[in-house]
């Protein structure tokens, strides 16, 4: 009886993802075609015949709408087609080769941001209006307002070039190589989550039910951990969806700066070269991740919130 509420919620939300995804693909498809230039524009124009052959091979000579439907028909089989630029590679292969590094950096950054952000936010909240609180929030403000592409060179300069502790870039599956990109990526998210947590924690700590918990003589660790933590984290949970999008956007820049062969690098490369299939593939792949992440967050939120969990049954 009770679980049908959540099950129903789950099914209807899942269904509503389909039009979102369709819209995303459609907009991306036409946007990239509107951008001037094409995949086979080179500095010296190709001979007419070769150009025509290439266009025919990739069906670029067909009317746009026909190409669109052809593409849609192709991707339902999860085939993103061949890359125009990286010869002998399919887009699926490129994604498979770039994603692990991106996931390692993005996932670690996400985890770090969640743990550090909530921890710092809670500390600031229980030390509200003290020097600790003010300095934490001051740093958070900086973390949010200074962009990635400024933080990254600074970190490289100090920790890699001067101190020589860490590599300035490049990619290996090692802690040392991951550290700087992960920190650069996580910093603004840590700062944002810390502020979010602080605000909601302060609000929760002023609520009547926390006063009740204190009146019951419960020790502070139970008051915070059991009574205050869950409601205080709800806004952070719902932020994890947008945070994923932010991390992905950030990683596109970060991967360039630290020369990491991840999805972000392929995306930038693909966009510059008008590698239609590669750009579409990465956009759809990222889109699915963001949509899925929002979906998971939504479910988690509903599951954590007893009022939503039961009322919609």
């Amino acid at each position, binding site marked *: 009886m009770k679980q049908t509420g959540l099950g129903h919620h789950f099914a209807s939300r899942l269904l509503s993802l389909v039009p979102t995804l369709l819209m995303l693909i459609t907009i991306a498809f036409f946007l990239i075609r509107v951008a001037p230039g094409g995949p086979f524009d080179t500095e010296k124009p190709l001979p007419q015949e070769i150009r025509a052959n290439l266009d025919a091979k990739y069906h670029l000579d067909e009317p746009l709408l026909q190409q669109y439907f052809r593409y849609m028909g192709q991707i339902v089989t999860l085939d993103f087609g061949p890359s125009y630029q990286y010869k002998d590679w399919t887009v699926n292969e490129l994604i498979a080769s770039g994603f692990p590094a991106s996931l390692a950096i993005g996932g670690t950054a996400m985890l770090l941001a969640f743990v550090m952000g909530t921890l710092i936010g809670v500390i600031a909240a229980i030390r*509200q209006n003290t020097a600790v609180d003010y300095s934490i929030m001051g740093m958070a403000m900086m973390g949010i307002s200074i962009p990635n592409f400024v933080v990254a060179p600074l970190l490289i300069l100090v920790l890699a070039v001067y101190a020589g502790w860490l590599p300035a870039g490049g990619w290996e599956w090692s802690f040392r190589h991951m550290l700087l990109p992960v920190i650069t990526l996580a910093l603004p998210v840590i700062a944002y989550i810390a502020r979010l947590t602080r605000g909601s924690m302060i609000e929760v700590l002023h*609520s*009547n*039910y926390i*006063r*009740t*918990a*204190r*009146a*019951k*003589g*419960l*020790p*502070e660790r*139970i008051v915070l951990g*059991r*009574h205050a933590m*869950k*409601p205080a984290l709800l806004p952070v949970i719902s932020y994890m969806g947008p945070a994923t999008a932010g991390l992905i956007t950030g990683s596109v820049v970060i991967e360039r700066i630290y020369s990491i062969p991840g999805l972000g690098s392929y995306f930038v490369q693909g966009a510059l070269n008008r590698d239609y299939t590669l750009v579409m593939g990465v956009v759809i792949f990222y889109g699915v991740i963001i949509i899925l992440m929002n979906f998971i967050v939504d479910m988690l939120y509903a599951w*954590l*919130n*007893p*009022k939503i969990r*039961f009322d919609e049954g």
Partner: protein
Amino acid sequence: MSLLEVKNLQVSFATPEGEVHAVNGIDFAVSTGETLAIVGESGSGKSQLVMAIMGLLAQNGRASGQALFKGEDLLQKTPRELNKVRGSQIAMIFQDPMTSLNPYLTVEQQMTEVVMYHQKLGRHEAFEHAVEMLRAVRIPDAEERIHEYPHEYSGGMRQRVMIAMSLLCEPDLLIADEPTTALDVTVQAQITYLIGELRKKTRMAMILITHDLAVVAGISDRILVMYAGQMVESGTVEDIFYRAHHPYTRGLLASVPRLDRDASDDLQAIPGNPPNLLALPGGCCFRDRCTQAQEICSQPPPMWRDERGHRSRCVLEMPDGRVENDSAGEAGSAAEESAP
């Protein structure tokens, strides 16, 4: 020895506008088995008085004076020390049942943790005990409903849960802060009746806060009337209902609806507003609204006391009363020595 003895309790809040003097020197004592009602208009400091005793004041609040519980001053205790008293020896029920329970935890979780923490009961024993308590406050299907979340309960049922929760450790003192104010009228009567009934079964003392004198007659032994953070009158139920001395108490009594009078034209709330707690006037704090105010009322009025302990703070003479040499009750800067 009294179970709880409060001496010259003061509470003030630091605000950007200045210091809010919410409680200004309150004295009272509660003995085992006794029920003290604290009555006063909204904003008279009733809640902050008991919050101070429980160590639950807001961050900007400061309490001074003494609150001796079994001889130990609660105001001097650290939160950690207070936790040995709160919830087990002194329990509290709050004004607003809709928000006083944690919406993210089941009733079971919120009830069992009290006995698991204070009495070190195991999960199973704690559960049994909680169900038993819910039955005692007459929640139907208690062993089923205990698994539900607060929002699945009505307001009256939630207050029953709060009552059951507060009684889990068999406290020596129960503080009930307007336990029925937020409820429907019919439910109010049920909850009041329930509290009175549960009280009779134990030797628990109770402080019952209300702004409604009609509620207290049946269930309290003594009544303390508060105005602007001061005690203006206190005495037995008979003292207050039949021999009310202070003009404010008499005003309150006149505003109580009574069956033997025509409710429509006799209900008269006291006109005017309580004084600004940021800058309390010297002298009697009720004088702006008092029909019997005189020139001399701008001086701090004397505290009268008769031999049974009926006390009143007013310039009007109390029959059989003598002026008490009390140290408390001076609002703000008004000096005690200037009392006549």
